[in-house]
């Protein structure tokens, strides 16, 4: 029989592993405790004592006191620091003191609300008072909805439900809105970009309705680590916020390792696939009975890794000890896995960022990240999953070949001391604002001179009444249309022009499996595309532009498809620009029109990423007006390097900027696009544009504009720090004239 290795032994082995390029130890920390606040209701105190809690962490006590003083709060709390008590205590305190008092909890997902409901219920049971807390979402049975509306003291829901169901029917929720004392917003950092901009408006509507019913609730928000928690909370709620960010929870010693897979092709500077490394590392821990969580960025990778890892065990029961976990699983299945992780029956789990949020799975010992998760908030939330009370925790980040991963691997100091990214929203994006104004007017008429957020509403209302949506009469604008606006406006999808994805595999049981905005549809759902949904592959049979439907059927093939877009970009208005003498360049920010024409698609084999075929895409051009930041260089560079080389340098720079952007602003690949132009239409100079992929923009490119000089610095470090000669995935990518392009780019950047 093989002898099991202990954690210490495995660590000792890793210390010798040449691929472990950085080893950072974060010392453990003692708890910073505070006695129960004097005002704390005796029933709450008793319940806590019965749980074996005899004092609070300092941040919990501070949250309680601050809420008691009537302030709006943003709490920054790492995973497993007892954040739930930070809001549950003030809320329960108010409900116990006055049973007519109400609280509304907002969670980004239904699953989180369910989770918190169970936790709240346990606490209520211990208190022994009949406090009524309910979840209210799409799954809530019709029969108890009325009861919740009238008698629910604590209502847990999500922003979508608030938007499309609760607010438009506020007359049925009078007792909630008249007595609303607290609004709890959990996972504040998830409300960013388009979604966050919508949610900020939903909160404006909520506050408007509260004011109508005479209540002024306090906000308690919690957030993962971001650079601007207070500012973000203020942008989202429109209130002055008090920040509580000193965490009093204890933590164990943590070893944070960077693992950089070895270069397997020297010429191309291609490294071993990070998935292989992750598999081997995870297997070593799992084989030795050490509970491990693996994070991967895509649902497909999650499934692949889980099935590889299951192979290390033989028996069926043994295999069941390793699971995949991601969105799209049924609630029961997810509950089973969460329970298994808590009680130790499940040894290993491979997850998307679904397990990043506050789902209760207890603490594991090891966390492995497949590549940099894209932002620091995610890093720390994922890392927080490792750390049992008594033993050292191990976190391993396995780098991919992307420039960002390679940059971070090479700059651990930046990583460990650097600031986290900012979460940005733009609630006043005119597209979003207009949609939300409609919903708001539907709920309550607007009065002349009213404001919505900071905006005076008169002009907007006049516009809407011109469009026959509102009717003006004696100083007020009333909704005067037969539509129900909230139904037509979704908080999560980009434009209200969404396509249904119809699975026609079984002709008898055709069903809708998802939806996508027009831009997405035209770049991912063109005919003959392979579309991945919940780890399953679908072939797109037809994209019906008129009916806005994509018909797909299940297939099992070993390739995926990727489309090429011909992008034309025009600057409509320059809002800001300034010289950047360092690079003999200038940066700009403004409004652009992006016209995209999908042209061809490539078929790419999964395992090898080989190109195994292609096809034409026959679709009309798409147009979008949005915000962009750009950097323009002098034209003389073109003559100096020649067109081919210089074009290579620009394409390389685009590649780098795309990857460097997440260092400055929380964004996904899908949120930003980068387009190089050898001759920009507005100034005829070589230019690289970075634009928000949402009509009207949501503030990402604005931040990029501000951070441009710093970004160029990072990009320079990325190019310099890369050992390849003529371009590789970790720096400028593969471009024409790679060697000379790389040189040219360096020269360009360093001037």
């Amino acid at each position: 029989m093989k002898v099991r290795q202990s954690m210490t032994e495995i660590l000792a082995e890793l210390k010798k592993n040449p691929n472990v390029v950085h080893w950072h130890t974060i010392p453990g920390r003692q708890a910073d405790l505070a006695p129960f606040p004097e005002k704390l209701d005796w029933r709450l105190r008793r319940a806590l004592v019965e749980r074996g809690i005899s004092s609070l962490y300092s941040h919990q006590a501070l949250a309680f006191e601050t809420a008691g003083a009537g302030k709006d709060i943003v709490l920054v709390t790492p995973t497993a620091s007892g954040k739930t008590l930070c809001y549950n205590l003030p809320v329960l305190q108010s409900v116990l003191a006055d049973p007519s008092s109400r609280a509304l909890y907002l969670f980004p997902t239904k699953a989180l609300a369910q989770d918190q409901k169970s936790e709240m219920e346990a606490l209520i049971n211990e208190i022994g008072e009949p406090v009524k807390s309910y979840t209210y979402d799409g799954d809530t049975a019709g029969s108890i909805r009325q009861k919740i509306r009238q008698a629910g003291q604590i209502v847990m829901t999500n922003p979508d439900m608030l938007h499309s169901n609760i607010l438009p029917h506020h007359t049925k929720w009078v007792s909630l809105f008249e007595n609303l004392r607290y609004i709890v917003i959990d996972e504040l950092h998830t409300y960013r970009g388009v979604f966050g901009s919508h949610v900020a408006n939903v909160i404006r509507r909520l506050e408007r309705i509260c004011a109508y019913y005479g209540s002024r609730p306090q906000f308690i928000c919690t957030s993962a680590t971001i650079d601007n928690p207070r500012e973000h909370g203020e942008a989202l709620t429109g209130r002055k916020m008090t920040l509580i960010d000193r965490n009093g929870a204890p933590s164990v010693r943590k070893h944070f390792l960077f693992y950089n897979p070895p270069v397997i092709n020297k010429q191309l500077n291609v490294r071993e696939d990070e998935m292989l490394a992750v598999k081997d590392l995870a297997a070593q821990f799992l084989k030795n009975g050490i509970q491990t969580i693996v994070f991967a960025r895509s649902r497909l990778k999650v499934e692949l890794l889980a099935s590889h890892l299951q192979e290390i065990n033989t028996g069926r029961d043994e295999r069941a000890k390793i699971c995949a976990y991601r969105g799209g699983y049924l609630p029961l299945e997810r509950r089973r896995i969460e329970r298994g992780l808590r009680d130790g029956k499940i040894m290993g789990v491979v997850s998307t960022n679904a397990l990043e949020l506050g789902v209760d799975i207890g603490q594991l010992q090891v966390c492995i990240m497949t590549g940099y998760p894209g932002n620091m908030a995610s890093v720390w939330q994922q890392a927080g999953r490792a750390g049992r009370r008594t033993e050292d925790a191990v976190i391993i980040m396995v780098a991919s070949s992307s420039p960002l991963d390679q940059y971070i691997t090479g700059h651990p100091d930046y990583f460990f001391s650097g600031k986290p990214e900012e979460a940005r929203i733009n609630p006043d994006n005119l597209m979003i604002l207009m949609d939300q104004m409609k919903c708001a007017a539907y709920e309550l008429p607007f009065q002349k001179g009213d404001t919505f957020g900071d905006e005076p509403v008169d002009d907007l209302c006049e516009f809407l009444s011109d469009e026959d949506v509102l009717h003006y009469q004696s100083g007020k604008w009333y909704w005067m249309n037969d539509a129900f606006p909230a139904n037509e406006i979704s908080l999560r999808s980009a434009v209200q022009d969404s396509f249904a994805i119809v699975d026609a595999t079984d002709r008898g049981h055709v069903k809708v499996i998802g939806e996508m905005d027009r831009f997405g549809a035209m770049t991912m759902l063109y005919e003959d595309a392979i579309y991945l949904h919940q780890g399953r592959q679908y072939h797109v049979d037809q994209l019906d532009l008129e009916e806005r439907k994509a018909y797909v059927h299940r297939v099992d093939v070993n390739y995926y498809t990727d489309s090429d877009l011909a992008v034309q970009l025009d600057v409509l208005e320059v809002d800001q620009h300034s010289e950047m003498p360092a690079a003999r360049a200038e940066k700009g920010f403004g409004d652009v029109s992006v016209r995209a024409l999908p042209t061809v698609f490539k078929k790419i084999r999964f395992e090898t990423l080989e190109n195994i075929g292609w096809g034409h895409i026959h679709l009309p051009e798409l147009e979008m007006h949005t915000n962009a930041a750009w950097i323009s260089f002098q034209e003389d560079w073109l003559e100096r390097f020649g067109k081919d080389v210089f074009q290579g340098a620009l394409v390389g720079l685009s590649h780098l900027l795309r990857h460097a952007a997440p260092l400055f602003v929380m964004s996904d690949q899908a949120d930003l696009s980068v387009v190089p132009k050898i001759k920009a239409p507005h100034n005829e100079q070589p230019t690289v544009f970075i634009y928000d992929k949402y009509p009207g923009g949501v503030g990402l490119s604005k931040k990029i504009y501000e951070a441009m000089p710093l970004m160029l610095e990072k990009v320079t470090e990325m190019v310099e720090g890369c050992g390849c000669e003529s371009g590789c995935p970790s720096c400028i990518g593969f471009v024409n004239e790679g060697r000379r392009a790389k040189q040219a780019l360096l020269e360009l950047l360093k001037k």
Partner: protein
Amino acid sequence: MRSKGKSQVSNKKNLFSLTLEYAVKGTIHVSLKQKLQLYKKQLHQAQKTASSSYVKKREMMEKTEDTVRETEQAACELNAKIRRFEDEYVLVHTEMLHLTEHIGPYLARDLFDTVSAWQRGSSVHPLSAAGLDTGDLLFFDTETTGLASGAGQMIFLIGLARVTPNGVMLRQYFLPGPGHEAAFYDAFLRDCRSLRNLVTFNGKAFDWPRVKTRHSFVRDQVPRLPAFGHFDLLHASRRLWRDRWDSVKLQTIEKKILGMAREEDVPGKMAPFLYFRFLKHPNAQLVRGIIEHNREDVLTLIALYIHLSGKVLGLIQCDEKETYEIARWYRQIGEEDQAKKLFEKLAVSSSGTGMRAKAQVGRLYKKEGLYEKALDMFESVIHEDGTPDDRDCIEAAKLMEHQFKDYTRAIEYTQRAIECLRGKKKMMGEGFPKREAEYLKRLNRLDEKKLRENR
């Protein structure tokens, strides 16, 4: 990379492109209007709506005074009185129709006979007027600005009618604009203090929740909503006629059941749009049609109530299906004697309905302990009906098993039930496996019982 010349805002009719630039803080106040103009231009291109400028709009607003005058003029043309409430007002049209007024096949005064017939009939039937005077019944219908149920849809027209010894008192309340709801609900609630006996068509699910929603906006200014009780004629009509049409609509019933025809009716779904136009240009012609539509709806309710009551009370000839549904309705509300009488009458027929009635009679007999008679009924169904219902076979099997201890035949009937059930597997969908399992379990038990008996 394609990069060709400069282009300004494209003229494409693509909603996707209706984007406005991100409003940079600090500059939004200055240029918002400009941005809106851009937005509007594109939206208009997309919707092909007629152009109207802001200037025009401004002029409109200044014309509030004119609007009031126009509304007064409209009230006059609509033969309505203006009732004021603080600085709001409502248009109220009242008329008194003669008791000999024809409503479809009936006269208004027939309602007196109907109500007095109910005094001798079932008092628990949902349509029953036992204990009520004819004048207590309030026939009620509304027109709204949309079908959705949220806070933003308004009721702009309420029509109601009562039949009194002096005639049919018909009254309609018309909301002259969204800012007059207090006047609207105040007038309506003061006129009819009790709303305990509303007669509506889908009022419980549609009209009443909307009354509650809109009332809550003016609840501090107007009387409270009284307790609500009601007769829903949609519910009753569905019971009787749901098999005949895809959806049971008042218009269909008028045409197909009551033999009524409307001249130049404005379809109900046009109502919101005509009302919106009226709000912009208060011209009586725009809403005259809706008001007439509502008036006729309310009157139809009187005829429909007489008609449905007549059928339920056995005063009007019913076909087999109607009789069957009426009997079933009686059974469900616990009036089993009444139900049995009707089912027995049907059970002599050899039609499909007759078969179903037999099975119903069988169940009622069984409940009374008349097992032989019950079994006769079920066996007759099983033998005479080509495709008997599996549940009737099971009833026979149950009687054989528990009352007559004849397991062999109980097994036969259970097998027959399974056969029938499998025949409609496709139709049943999700309920199928559960029921099949149930029957198989029964079969096993019967097999065991039979074995034990033989031993």
